[in-house]
């Protein structure tokens, strides 16, 4: 599904540069649910951004679903992001003047689908996250958990190969966090490959594999017994 070889990334800070990722090797198979952990500054978000093609690596190979991701121009990156990836952010990143359904249907707009098709698919995914009744509400009328579920529905809308979640529960309370995790686990059970960046131990425990980063290198990469979130809800 995803293969990364000797990935390096550094950011310029003034005259010097900060080496954030120092040779990452990682491969993720289809159907996995991986937690990427590390303290702040360990490079976990940078890694996720590179995987999500939101950022570019300085050197190293990155192959996604058999396609080498390298030297993409903006247009191609946009197409790949749309086709391969679904994003879930800590701050939800919904467009505040669009209602829930419109937000969910937005990736489909960029896929070039017809309006009717977009509406149908959007509704389908809203139903999946259990918020069909809220289809015509603006994000400002929704709770944090609802917003994140809308965001998940949006990430799912384009039927991506890989779901990328950057601290998906970071802005939520514990109960809501577990609800979201339960839903993500459910998606994983259905076969979706999911990568979650988190610094919360209990969230990581709910994944099937934990990759620990420290100072830009992988310290530990282990399979874990998944803790089902449903038992807390």
């Amino acid at each position, binding site marked *: 599904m995803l293969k990364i070889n000797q990935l390096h990334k550094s950011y310029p800070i003034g005259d010097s540069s900060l080496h954030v990722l120092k040779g990452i090797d990682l491969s993720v198979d289809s159907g996995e649910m991986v937690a990427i952990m590390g303290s702040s500054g360990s490079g976990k978000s940078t890694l996720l*951004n590179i995987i999500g093609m*939101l*950022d570019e690596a300085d050197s190293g190979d990155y192959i996604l679903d058999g396609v080498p991701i390298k030297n993409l121009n903006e247009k191609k990156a946009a197409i790949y*992001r*749309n086709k391969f990836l679904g*994003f879930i952010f800590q701050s939800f*990143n919904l467009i505040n003047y669009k209602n829930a359904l419109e937000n969910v249907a937005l990736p489909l*707009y960029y896929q070039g689908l017809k309006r009717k098709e977009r509406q149908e698919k959007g509704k389908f995914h809203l139903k999946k996250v259990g918020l069909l009744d809220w289809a015509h509400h603006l994000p400002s009328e929704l709770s944090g958990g609802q917003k994140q579920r809308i965001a998940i529905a949006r990430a799912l809308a384009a039927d991506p190969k890989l779901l990328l979640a950057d601290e998906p529960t970071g802005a939520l309370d514990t109960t809501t966090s577990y609800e979201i995790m339960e839903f993500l686990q459910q998606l994983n059970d259905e076969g979706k490959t999911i990568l979650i960046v988190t610094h919360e131990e209990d969230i990581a425990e709910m994944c099937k594999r934990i990759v620990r980063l420290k100072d830009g290198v992988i310290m530990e990469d282990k399979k874990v017994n998944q803790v089902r979130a449903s038992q807390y809800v």
Partner: protein
Amino acid sequence: MFDIDLWREIFQSINKNRLRTLLSGFTVLFAIMLFTILFGIANGLQNTFTEAFADDATNAIFINSGTTTKAYKGMQAGRRIQFDNEDYNYIKDDSGNNIEFMTARIYKNVNASFRNENDSYSVRAVHPDHQFLEKTLMDEGRYINQRDVDEKTKVIVIGSKVEEDLFLKTKALGKYLNLSGIQYKIVGIFSDEGNESEERLIYMPVSTAQQVYGNNDYVDQINLGYNREMNFDQAISFSNSLTKKLKDRFSVAPADQRAVRVRNMAEASKNVNQMTTVLGIIVLIIGMGTLIAGIVGISNIMIFIVKERTKEIGIRKALGASPNSIISIILVESILITAIAGYIGLLIGMGILEIVGPGMKEYFITDPGVSMSLVMSATITLVLAGALAGYLPAKKASKIKPIVALRND
């Protein structure tokens, strides 16, 4: 290529971000409105100036006589100078090809009556050429001709207001009008581009007036039009030499300003031309200033809009929006708003000119108005400026990495 979804996106964005829309809309609306009104007023001022001098021929030279103010060649000051037919002929022979037309003028006041209607009017006894001097327009009949002058016929040409006043609803042409006891045949009715009082005048042949009123050959004023092939300097030197000759002829001191007065319209019309040019430049500066203010305003707003939308752009990019779609969504929105707002501003501006315009005549503003093409090009300039001002930041925003845009809170 018409993309209904793109338009749907844009209309939603316009509709849901009213403040933003209003801000950019009003900037353009006011700029175009002010531009229209200022230009209209300036045009009105210019119209007033051109109209004020359209009345008479611009190449006219008026020669008047008065009393001497300086003793000269043994003669006392206070001597009265009186022109007569000989002086008229002297000027005519002396000037030759330098004059286009020439006429004498005698002023009289008469009491005119027709049936029960009567009123007092000014009579001007003139030569046929007077028609060119005053740019008199014949509505009916003919003007005074050379035969009238030669035969001293008792004919008159009356202004349209005289006909209105004395003949009420009936036709005056061909009828006889009693001027202080003498019957004159009306051979023509005229109108004048100048003011209404010009149309209350009565013209008669100069020779008739000389015979009827005083039986002499005096004339009050001699007017001529210099040859239009002369340039400004030539025209001035022509009238200067004429002044000198006349002063010699009447033994008037060269420095005497009262005895023989020659007024050359070339000077006045040169001043008017300069005035209109200066006015035009002022108008241009004001218009440009308004336009530049509008351009700066819309540019600022566009930069602000793109900044405000940075995060949205990041989200859209993360969801698979291509850079081009980002640029087009911002640009089409700004062009749409500026074009519509500009058009409304244009309509309001023209509406105000239309409503206020007719009442502005006493403030020296005649028919204020602007040419459609001028305002349209001003609007298009603003739209393009807005588009350009939006394009640069939009292009930049479409290039920044989504991750940077998303971090922008």
